[in-house]
């Protein structure tokens, strides 16, 4: 197998793992998943930043 062919295979496997597995199943955008709009996201972050432990 040529170097070029081997590299293309590595690139495709890597991108598949990153975008089709890791991104979808392990790395959701937390604020987008939990809240419907920017107002709710902002309010949530303000609560996080201003609440005293």
């Amino acid at each position: 197998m040529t170097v070029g062919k081997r590299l293309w295979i590595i690139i495709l496997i890597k991108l598949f793992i990153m975008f089709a597995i890791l991104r979808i199943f392990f790395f959701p955008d937390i604020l987008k998943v939990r809240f419907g709009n920017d107002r709710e996201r902002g309010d949530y972050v303000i609560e996080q930043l201003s609440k005293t432990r």
Partner: protein
Amino acid sequence: MFENIDPSLVNWSRGQFALTAMYHWIFVPLTLGLSFIIALMETIYVRTGKEEWKKITKFWMTLFGINFAIGVATGIILEFEFGTNWSNYSWFVGDIFGAPLAIEGIMAFFLESTFIAVMFFGWNKVSKKFHLTSTWLVAFGASLSALWILVANAWMQDPVGMHFNPDTARNEMLDFWQVLFSPVAIHKFIHTITSGYVLASLFVVGICSWYILKKRELFLAKRSILVASVFGLISSLMLIYSGDGSARQLVHVQPMKFAAIEGLYNGQTGAGLVAIGIISSAPGDTNSRNVKDFSFLIEIPNFLSYMAYGEFDAFVPGVNDLVDGNLKYNLIPVSDKMERGKLARETLADLKSARDRGDTAQYALLNARFRDPDFINNFFRYFGYGFLDDPNQVIPNVPLAFYSFHIMVGLGFYFLLLLVLFLIGLYRNKLENRKFLLRLAIFTIPLAYLASQAGWIVAEMGRQPWVIQDLLPTMAAVSHIDATSVQVTFWLFAVLFSALLTAELSIMFKQIKIGSK
């Protein structure tokens, strides 16, 4: 070993980010530097028309291709982590990160990726000059891509050119040019890309040294050493210059990091620069603040003061001055900053409360505070201190910062010397006889990576506990998610990146053994 790892969410999130960033940075500097070395070699080929130079260019282009193919897109993982593990931070930085990262995406995909296709597959399909232009554009595109992410990082070290919107809890960019041309960003960009250029030069010199020792590819090796050494030497000088500039900035924008990298606990007038030192702990001390002294020290008298302020007798604050405050030098105690930060946080909470209950008068009053320069300069600028429980939390890991900095600087000067020795060897045509120097160059390749990683440890660990200097500590930036999921993805990344690195080394070694055939 693993029993010592703090299993908390914050530490696992930090560990995961460090793991991915450090692996990503294994691939990036070689891409940055080798692209310029290849462009220089191809320029010589186009100008002289000698086929040997085309062969040399193609050989290094193959190694560049291996590194690029395996390393490409590893940085995207970091952006995944922003949204999942660091959602408070991602929201808080708002547009400041959005704009530079969007430009970086355009640069990477449209400039770099387009012309990289011509560079690899365009030989004999496009004219020599068009191909050469593509190679140069790949080189500039790679460095320009790095510019935007480094500008975003510099903003985290020295947040400028923005306004905090208390309605949305986001920072909004007021002045793009202030963000782009902040002195921290300029020095960081030059220092980081030139470190990549030096690393790539040492990579070329090291591999060529192996060829010379094996008495193979002698023409390729000597010509490549010439190009890489000259390029590396010029880059080394720029690296040292920008490093000095970075340190001068550091003392103003991140004085605690500056004190940590010098192991300076008690401020001094006429402070000496530590050339070599071994930090010692006093018996029974429980935290890094109480590390007392050096068990071994060689320092250059007064030079730290000069480096920081341009005056040999200037006062340089130490860790203790910065924590406890120092009236004589107008240093505010951290405990005072904590109170101011807490007031800023309470104002934000009150504003949201006023908005929620529809108290428009109170809301307008509190909202106006976030636009009042007095409130911004005396309270909001210490917003992050409001999260701290103990003033000692502002102290980073001093031994780690100190050793990482000194390893980086020491190796940087060693690299400069090595490149000079190679040029002398070439000039006198005695390189083949200098076996020790050739072996040293091979051994120096991993040292170049060590110095490069140490630089990022200084930058990122040295600024702890801040994600955004003085505004957001790491503990407040993290998402409230299950720590187990971060642990799972930590190990997934460890496996994925280790596999990629193994593939890189395996294919690279094989290709080097084959040579330029």
